[in-house]
């Protein structure tokens, strides 16, 4: 279906027109931008029924046949969920940002970046070809970089942007290496072809490396421990961006990748260990650190890290279904992935709403610091309600969708204890315990968001803006829609289950596709014997106690080892790298033009000289030489004299005239060599060049005598003579070794091939017109360069950014 391919390009196309539109309509630009995601959302939603019936859509634009790279888009259940999230949350975020961003901001730039991201992200989830996927993957990193640095005059924004870029892009490059290994193994870049054939290659040593590298890409993008450190710093972005990229979509690209690659790597035991182990630890670490945050956005960042870990661990556990072969339990194990996908959707709804709430608080009161906030409930009832719904859903309480997926998460862990591969009494229990503790912390920070912000006493003097108003209706629409979804999904979870999750499960488990119970019915109530229910009760009880006693145990965060953070490792690493590379660069980049030329010429002397000497190819053959007449001897002699005199003359005008002598002599030599076109051109060019030199001399000072020490002169002379000698030897060697027949006879058919009798000109205009075209472009650029160098006077710009 071409529609899917188009849907990737529509955001890019729209982005091109934004700057022009922005000039015309200014601050209302958002209303035009929002059309794009809404239209795409409706378009993608129209695919839901057919995808639910098990259909998939594919469209290929052939591109580079020799490398097997084609623009193939593929729509199945898994990519549809992501596509709907990207466009759906995208619409809401743009709606929100229309009211959130002040019209003084450079809105054009903002929406261009946002559309760029949207297109790139759609490209990631719809691409079947790994190379194309990689390009879009990095494009999301770049657009994220641009959006985090949107307020680039702030130092922290630049720091956060750079950090996220460095971490995600290096992960991306690792992933590229993994992709190349996969292609090397299977001979294809197509994900589906790789899935079909990978079974034969699982024993290859490269397979494991490919897996680790791909996981590195996924873990950096999805902020899994220890690469999570970029996400809190990314919160310097405007809040709509944080809600969109850094909680709902981009950070889930890693999860998409892991889910997409589960059929490829899922049979490998280590895949299960790394993905689920890494996920569980990230879940714990994120939730543990979220509690200590005082900035609401930082708190949400850590909470996002933790939730991403949860989803990641579930997908890892789900791959057990492929490990156990056709075991009867495999359907049961696969349900972990079902829970993962469900929670993915739920997380996007409640976290999106929470981010928007924090944005509202920040926007209205000028601070996000929970130590200064309190008692907002009194004048922000709507915001408070949304925050309550979002937080309670995140904590896993009914009647919100987070409760359902949290229960399924506990169920999956309980089931995991039965894995043959786990030692039931140790690892299985450990997972369960860690996950439970993490859930307790999740409960605690969810309560912090609600109670410390909206309850307690209002200290209006502590706020930046002393306003006591509810946010404008426009800003409340988007989070309200999400809050309604949070509740709606709780009551009607099976709509999502049937239409979105079931086809996605078939995509993740092609071997189990359509099996009974792969996509179970979602129930809120499992009865009193359900372990998960009692775990939730435990979370609430212990969580409440911990929240009430927060101030007594908060001290553990200041214990020494806790202060030693991964951030300092990153900073130290970056500094070492910067120092190392600048030391290395300064070592040879001395700032003298002469030094660089010496490097180049020395390399030329050594490499070409050595090549001629070592291969022993310096055989000279003078037999083919053309005869020389007396006047030719005279010209060459005159040229030699003129050339050497250039070095000796006192005045620059003489030197320039001597250069002219060289040029006109060459024009004469071209006549002798039967090259009339060249002779003409050379003569005219020489004239114009001379005029140019004269013009420039008018402005430049007379040259002074070189007062360099004799040692330098000898050194320069030696290099010059060596280069000259090698060029001569090289020329003679080439003359002496004719290894190929000349191809020029082909061009002698120019009258039939190109309809011209001047062979040189047909080569220029027809056979090798590409060269000529580029030459014209180069000439044009040089002309523009000269013009700008002279006309453009750079204005001193004020430095309006922090250092």
């Amino acid at each position, binding site marked *: 279906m071409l529609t899917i391919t188009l849907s990737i390009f529509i955001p890019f196309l729209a982005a091109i027109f934004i700057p022009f539109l922005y000039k015309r309509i200014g601050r209302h630009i958002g209303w035009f931008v929002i059309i794009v995601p809404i239209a795409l959302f409706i378009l993608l939603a129209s695919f839901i029924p057919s995808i639910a019936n098990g259909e998939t859509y594919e469209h290929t634009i052939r591109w580079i046949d020799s490398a097997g790279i084609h623009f193939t888009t593929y729509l199945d259940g898994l990519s549809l969920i992501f596509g709907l999230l990207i466009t759906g949350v995208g619409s809401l975020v743009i709606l929100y940002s229309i009211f959130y961003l002040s019209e003084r901001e450079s809105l054009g730039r903002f929406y261009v970046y946002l559309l760029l991201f949207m297109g790139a992200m759609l490209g990631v989830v719809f691409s079947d070809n790994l190379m194309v996927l990689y390009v879009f993957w990095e494009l999301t990193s770049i657009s994220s970089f641009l959006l985090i640095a949107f307020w680039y005059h702030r130092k922290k924004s630049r720091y956060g942007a750079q950090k996220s870029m460095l971490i995600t892009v290096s992960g991306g490059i690792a992933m590229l290496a993994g992709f190349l290994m996969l292609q090397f193994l299977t001979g294809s870049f197509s994900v589906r072809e790789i899935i079909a054939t990978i079974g034969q290659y699982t024993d290859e040593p490269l397979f494991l490396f490919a897996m680790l590298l791909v996981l590195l890409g996924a873990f950096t993008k999805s902020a899994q421990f220890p690469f999570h450190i970029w996400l809190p710093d990314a919160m310097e972005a405007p809040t709509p961006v944080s809600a969109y990229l850094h909680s709902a979509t981009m950070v889930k690209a890693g999860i998409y990748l892991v889910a997409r690659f589960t059929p490829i790597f899922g049979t490998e035991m280590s895949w299960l260990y790394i993905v689920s182990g890494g996920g569980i630890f990230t879940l714990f670490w994120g939730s543990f650190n979220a509690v200590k945050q005082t900035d609401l956005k930082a708190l949400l960042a850590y909470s996002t890290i933790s939730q991403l870990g949860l989803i990641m661990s579930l997908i890892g556990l789900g791959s057990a279904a492929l490990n156990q072969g056709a075991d009867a339990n495999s359907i049961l194990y696969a349900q972990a992935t079902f829970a993962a996908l469900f929670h993915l959707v739920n997380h996007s709804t409640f976290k999106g709403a929470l981010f928007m709430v924090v944005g509202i608080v920040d926007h209205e009161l000028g601070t996000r610091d929970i130590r200064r906030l309190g008692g907002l409930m009194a004048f922000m009832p709507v915001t408070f309600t949304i925050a309550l719904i979002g937080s309670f859903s995140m904590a896993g309480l009914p009647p919100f969708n987070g409760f359902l997926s949290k229960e399924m998460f506990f169920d999956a862990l309980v089931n995991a204890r039965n894995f043959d591969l786990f030692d039931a009494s140790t690892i299985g229990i450990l997972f369960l315990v860690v996950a439970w503790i993490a859930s307790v912390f999740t409960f605690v920070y969810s309560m912090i968001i609600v109670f410390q912000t909206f309850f307690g006493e209002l200290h209006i003097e502590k706020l930046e803006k002393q306003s006591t108003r509810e946010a404008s209706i426009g800003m409340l629409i988007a989070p309200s829609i999400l809050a309604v979804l949070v509740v709606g999904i709780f009551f009607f979870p099976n709509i999502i289950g049937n239409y979105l999750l079931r086809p996605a499960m078939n995509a993740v488990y092609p071997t189990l596709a359509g099996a009974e119970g792969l996509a179970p019915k979602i129930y809120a109530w499992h009865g009193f014997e359900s372990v998960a229910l009692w775990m939730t009760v435990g979370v609430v009880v212990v969580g409440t106690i911990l929240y009430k006693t927060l101030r007594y145990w908060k001290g553990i965060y200041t214990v020494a080892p806790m202060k030693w953070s991964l951030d300092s490792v990153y900073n130290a690493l970056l500094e070492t790298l910067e120092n190392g590379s600048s030391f290395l660069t300064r070592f040879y980049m001395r700032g*003298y033009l002469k030094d660089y030329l010496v490097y180049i010429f020395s390399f030329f002397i050594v490499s070409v000289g050595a090549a001629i000497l070592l291969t022993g190819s310096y055989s000279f053959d003078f037999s083919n030489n053309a005869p020389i007449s007396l006047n030719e001897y005279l010209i060459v002699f005159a040229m030699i004299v003129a050339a050497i005199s250039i070095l000796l003359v006192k005045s620059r005008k003489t030197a320039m005239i001597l250069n002219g002598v060289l040029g006109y002599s060459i024009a004469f030599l071209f006549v002798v060599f039967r090259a009339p076109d060249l002779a003409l051109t050379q003569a005219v060019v020489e004239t114009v060049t001379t005029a140019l030199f004269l013009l420039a001399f008018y402005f430049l000072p007379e040259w002074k005598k070189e007062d360099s020490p004799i040692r330098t002169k000898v050194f320069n002379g030696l290099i010059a003579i060596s280069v000259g000698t090698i060029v001569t030897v090289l020329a003679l060697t080439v003359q002496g070794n004719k290894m190929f027949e000349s191809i020029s006879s082909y061009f002698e058919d120019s009258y039939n091939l190109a309809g011209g009798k001047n062979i040189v000109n047909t080569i220029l205009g027809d056979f090798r017109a590409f060269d000529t075209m580029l030459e014209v472009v180069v000439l044009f650029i040089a002309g523009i360069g000269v013009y700008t160098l002279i006309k453009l006077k750079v204005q001193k710009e004020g430095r309006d950014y922090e250092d």
Partner: protein
Amino acid sequence: METLISILVGILVTVAVYLLLSRNLIRVILGTAVLSHAAHLLLITMGGLKKGSAPLLGEGAESYTDALPQALILTAIVISFAVTALLLVLAYRTYKKTATDDLQALRGFEDE
């Protein structure tokens, strides 16, 4: 003839390299001009000299000289003109801004 031109090319290259290594901006630019002269001569020599008539089919000759190097040189002549022009303007701007044409003195700052 080929040998003679090869030696001439060698001498031109020597002169050009020596000029390039000097401290004066104009000398460096002259060096590039001489170097391109040398390159053009080298190119046409590689195709063989005086091996036939000028590459114009209207001549009706039996054999023609190699037209390919000629086409390459024609392109190169125009490009080297453009480069020379750009370099001259660069030198002029540099002099206007810094009041020196000495490359030793033009070295960038240490802390950049």
